[in-house]
């Protein structure tokens, strides 16, 4: 069962990722990425990370990617245009990456210390997670919240078309 689920959703993941590369329209790429992310959420579930699975769906698929599609719609971004040398990247890039991937894969497959993943063990409950998060990692957590606050302010400042630009022009 675990094996089947893994295979199915790993296939979804890979298909989504490849589709992301092949699609020429950004919105299709975005949707492919949503597929990847939701499939990853299932894989997290298989790995016993329940909360992360939910967070993956809510944060990544539900917020970040919505933001992406939103921007694509707002800017009405069309299909990609071909430019000089863009094919060269594809021709050189793919084989190169495949070669590196092969190296990494060899390493991983030659390594014997890894165990196997089974569903019935190793489920991390939300309590376990939050206990560590709010005690020993409280400071990073707070710092991250400050980071997000700054990001919000930065995004607002960047995206507002406005007084800032005009006064700077003067």
């Amino acid at each position: 069962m675990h094996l089947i689920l893994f295979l199915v959703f790993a296939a979804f993941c890979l298909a989504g990722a490849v589709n992301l590369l092949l699609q020429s329209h950004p919105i299709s790429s975005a949707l492919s990425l949503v597929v990847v992310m939701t499939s990853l959420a299932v894989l997290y579930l298989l790995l016993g990370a329940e909360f992360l699975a939910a967070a993956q769906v809510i944060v990544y698929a539900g917020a970040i990617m919505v933001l992406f599609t939103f921007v694509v719609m707002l800017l009405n971004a069309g299909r990609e245009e071909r430019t000089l040398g863009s094919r060269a990247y594809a021709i050189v890039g793919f084989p190169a990456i495949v070669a590196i991937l092969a190296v990494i894969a060899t390493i991983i497959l030659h390594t014997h210390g890894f165990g196997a993943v089974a569903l019935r063990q190793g489920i991390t409950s939300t309590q376990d997670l939050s206990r560590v998060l709010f005690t020993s990692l409280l400071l990073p957590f707070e710092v991250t919240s400050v980071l997000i606050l700054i990001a919000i302010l930065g995004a607002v400042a960047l995206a507002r078309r406005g007084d800032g630009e005009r006064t700077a022009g003067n």
Partner: protein
Amino acid sequence: MTLLQFFLWSLLKIAVVTVVMLMGVAYTVLLERKLVGRIQNRWGPSRVGPFGLLQPLVDGAKSFLKEDIIPTAVYKPLYLLAPILSLGCALISIAVVPFGSTNVTGPGGFHIFQIADVNIGLLVILGITSIGVYGIALAGWSSNNKYSLLGSLRSSAQLISYELALGLSLVGVVLRAGSLNLREIVENQSAHGIFSWNLFGGFQFVAFFIYLMAAFAETNRSPFDLPEAESELTAGYHTEYSSMKFAMFFMSEYGNMITVGCVATLMFLGGWTSPFGNLIPLPNNIVLQALIPIFWFVLKVFSFLFLYVWVRGTLPRFRYDQLMNFGWRYLMPLAILNIVGTSFWLAYR
């Protein structure tokens, strides 16, 4: 219990719940039409069947039989995907909702009245709801129509904004229950009937109010139905949709209403438990033991839907900037205050 049995039972539950859900959707539409009619001092649908009770079936047949128009300039894959996504998300989230007593179990000890008992049930519902945004966004964009696009942009922005308030309003309840499992949340409120409901006993009425507002906005219902404001945007994101595809959007809206009602019931109104607690003991009959909780659950969801329709028949629509202001400047800070207050109360109780 073998794998085969598990699959068969699950399929059965899914089939039954889906059919009931769709029926519920259909009759919610009827309920709305009748109620709004009464509010506006007219009869509402009354010709088909006794009291117009067969009207939903006729409506469904009409949708099926209409010509399926696909405008030429649409981006077809997404145009077709959007209503499916929308309806799918509306129906899937019901899977984690326990709608009957968990004391009654089927063979092998699994729950009859809940498709999937998940530790993070609440998060699953929230996650699926957030995926539902794509249906609306893609519908508007792929229609290649400016009304649709504006409607979908409004809708996406509105959904994202109010999702925050919605999620935060539920945190108080989660804090009280100490769990994200919907079943456990309900059991946590079962001790003394109405006095242990989160709405009353848990002092979560502020959270309930926030949830109510956010839920109205999340389902694009009046008074927050700006994405489909006819006077400004024709029909919003589904302007270019017709026949069954339109019906799917329609159904997904009402499906979402039911889901939201279920969540409100589970989180604030004690789920399937009786408001009288143990004052009226359950009868010994196993069938009654199974059915009475379902009765209470349906009653609560129904009253929630009634409230929905009532509000729709009463209140005018907000302006868009008012909507955003309300969500960000009032509901969200209030929700955060509620969390802080609940935390303090729990810590120093």
